[in-house]
């Protein structure tokens, strides 16, 4: 479970890193797509992690 948790945090870091990289290269459309596409699943994942913490 601990490894899964680390892996999930790593996924958040990867998404943020990629978005920032594309913004810094002025590829705003791709950066926006990465943000929009991961926003909902990322939010749902965070909710699931928090519920898991409470339990």
């Amino acid at each position, binding site marked *: *479970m601990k490894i*899964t948790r680390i892996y*999930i945090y790593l*996924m958040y870091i*990867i*998404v943020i*890193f*990629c978005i920032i*990289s*594309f913004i810094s*290269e002025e*590829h705003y*459309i*791709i950066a926006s*797509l*990465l943000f929009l*596409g*991961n926003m909902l*699943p*990322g939010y*749902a*994942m965070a*909710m*699931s*992690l928090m*519920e*898991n913490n409470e339990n």
Partner: protein
Amino acid sequence: MINEQVYRRFNHTVAACFVIYFLFPEYILEIKREYYILLFWILIITVEYLRLNKDLKVIGMRDYESNRIAGFVWFATGTCLILELYELGFVPQSLAIATIIMAAYTDPLIGEANQRFGDKWGIGLGLLSSFLIYQLIIGVLFYSIIGSMVAVASERPKIKWFDDDLAMQIIPILVLTVLSLMDFSPDLPQNILGGKL
């Protein structure tokens, strides 16, 4: 336990980040960047081998994946294949980027829509999502319309040895690449990223 379906969906959408590859320099630690694709693919195959043969626990697997190749392997194989085809000069960068992002988002969206609202919504939202992604990245209606139809059609058949995670990447990119070579087809922007990270 965390919600495994949410975990699967998040894994799928994060796969769109593979497009960061196009910002990488040609050489990383004096090794050509395309070799890292191979290295990554071998890593994925190793994890899958351990999961299937040595009881390695990987969460987020569906029941039917317990004795067959998992979705993440098919997806990674499709993406690695696209990146290699790009490096070999067989597919344009614009199509590679659009197809990887499209497959990463459209497949889970269709799955979610099918479950919640039924198959028709799955097809409709799948077409809309893939069309928008192709149109935003490539910007040519001809390719966006055909690409979205081919992508959604590739998702439908359920074949054990040719998963939709692979089909949704390989079939649209090959169809669009072949079309772009035809005389009657509109011009396709080849490279949309030129920068180095």
